[in-house]
């Protein structure tokens, strides 16, 4: 006896998608472009993620790197760190994977509209941010200034180099880059990503700072944003947690009472302040 209706489909059942293109991004990172076998669309928002399955190996969460303005196909950028990721790196074009999602809240596009956007990317934090950047560029007139601060550990570990170069050339956006450790060829900034903050001038009232990067980075970035008087509500972070189900059941991604896969992965600092274990 139970009042809840039994659903027709399993939330754990992925949709088959075909790998149509791969592209090396950096030494351990690769971009994968997929199309659903059934011809359907993913229908995501920037900042959302999917669960990607390689049956026999496992399933893992991965942000969507392409902008929803790009129709039909979608892209995932993946760093090879373990089982699923390394199996993915070994896939050839034409292979089938399973996709569930999109999951999570994504960046609050509606709130961002009309505002300046300050993006702070650390390492592969650029993967989910690329979706937003390309979205903003595709709908350029909907948004104010677009500023990107991007930090990599070394020049070799810069992600999406050719895109960075294109962005560098565009007049309708600003891109500042830095590396933790330079080499002979590197002529740009050296230092962690927060060292770029003094180089941008912003209007805190109308700016949303959006940051994604390794866990250690967040505290420092938030401090810089606050120095620039950006309100807590306008500082946005995307968090990584272990995830198994992506649908708010398995408990792994829980930070205090919130499920990162449901209420996140994007949070404002105002929300995070109340979450003891978030950053």
């Amino acid at each position, binding site marked *: *006896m*139970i009042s*809840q*209706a*039994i*659903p*027709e*489909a*399993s*939330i*754990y*059942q*992925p949709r*088959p998608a075909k790998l149509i293109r791969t592209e090396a991004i950096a030494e351990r990172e690769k971009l994968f472009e997929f199309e659903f076998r059934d011809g359907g669309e993913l229908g995501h928002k920037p900042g959302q993620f999917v669960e990607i*399955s390689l*049956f*026999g*190996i*496992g*399933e893992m969460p991965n942000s969507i790197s392409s902008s929803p303005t790009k129709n039909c196909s979608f892209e995932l950028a993946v760093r090879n*760190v*373990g089982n699923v*990721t390394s199996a993915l790196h070994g896939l050839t074009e034409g292979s*089938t994977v*399973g996709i569930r999602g999109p999951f999570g809240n994504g960046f609050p596009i509606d709130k961002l509209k009309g505002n300046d956007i300050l993006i702070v990317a650390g390492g592969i934090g650029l993967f989910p941010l690329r979706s937003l950047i390309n979205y903003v560029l595709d709908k350029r007139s909907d948004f104010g200034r677009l500023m990107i601060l991007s930090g990599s550990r070394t020049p070799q570990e810069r992600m999406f180099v050719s895109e960075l170069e294109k962005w560098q050339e565009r007049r309708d956006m600003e891109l500042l880059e830095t590396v933790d450790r330079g080499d002979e060829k590197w002529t740009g900034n050296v230092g962690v990503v927060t060292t770029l903050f003094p180089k941008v001038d912003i209007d805190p009232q109308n700016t949303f700072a959006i940051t994604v990067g*390794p*866990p250690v980075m967040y505290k420092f970035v938030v401090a810089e944003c606050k120095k620039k008087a950006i309100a807590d509500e306008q500082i946005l972070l995307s968090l*990584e*947690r*272990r995830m*198994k*189900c992506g*649908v*708010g*059941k*398995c*408990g*792994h991604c*829980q*930070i*205090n*009472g919130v499920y990162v896969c449901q209420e996140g992965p994007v949070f404002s600092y105002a929300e995070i302040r109340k979450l*003891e*274990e978030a950053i």
Partner: protein
Amino acid sequence: MENRIIEKQNMDVFVNNLINSDAEVVGAKRKDGKYAFGKLADATELCLDYDLALYPPKSYLLPPKETLIKFELGEELEAEPVVEAERVILFGVHPYDIKAIELLDVAFSGTNPDINYLSRRAKVTIIGIDCLNPNPNAFCASLGTATTDTGFDLMLTDIGASYVVAIGSSEGEELLGKYAVTREATQSELVQRDEQRQKALAKYKVALSMSAEDLPELLDKSWDSPVFKEKSEKCLSCGSCVMVCPTCFCFDVQDDIALNLKQGERYRQWDGCMLVDFALVAGGENFRRDSETRFRHRMYRKGKYLWERYGKLGCVGCGRCASACLAEIASPAETFNTLKEERRQHD
């Protein structure tokens, strides 16, 4: 709610009739000096006056290990969801366990309904029984889970010579009509039932020193309490407390493949926030690395997080965790009371 009476001497007939029906009948049986739910082969195996079953009936809804998907690798990937559900009658479930199932129901339905859980759930019939001999570690009376008006198909109360049976659903009514010899309950028998319940309430040895509704607020103020560190120093991170808990439902998902490397299955398996690697991610970052943070997380999940999420506490006071914890630290009541005491001294 309609109430009927089953005379004690007629109980075995009812149980055996159910056993002979198309459903699997599960009830508390003796096991190594304790009680545990198990499939009944005969009414004589069933214990209705048990204090606490070692494990909650959770595993009939969320088995320790369960296949979610079967797949076959090849040119074209084939993957099919697997939904297995047998008809099960849980016979003699205590109110706190029913309350816990109500929580699971909420967690597994809602925006992302879980077909595996809900399919099993639809085939489970719950015949409850009031707990008249509470376990020494239980504190249901403080949480309002010692009795229940909802969540069952039938609810029995032992009033001496007979059982009062409250009918909670049409399905329960049907079972009763088909398989049991019953009669109408008299007013005095219903009074007796209330007396039995009252008497049982007085038997609880552990109590919360505050009302359940105050827990979230208490926890709100207790994040930095030293009690978490003190207690968790003894923690073995053995997971026993979460494994035996009727309201814990976290799981892990993994793939297994046959030796031909073609057919395989994706399964889920119980997991728990008290285990060391629960929040570990690929880069080596562990978001709850030390036992203090895990211990605190569990307490908050019990007393605050689930309440805020589902409107139900994550603890029903059964006392199983306290019984299972060798380090003798797992009882939420104990921690909550200590926190309350700290607050009192602080204010």
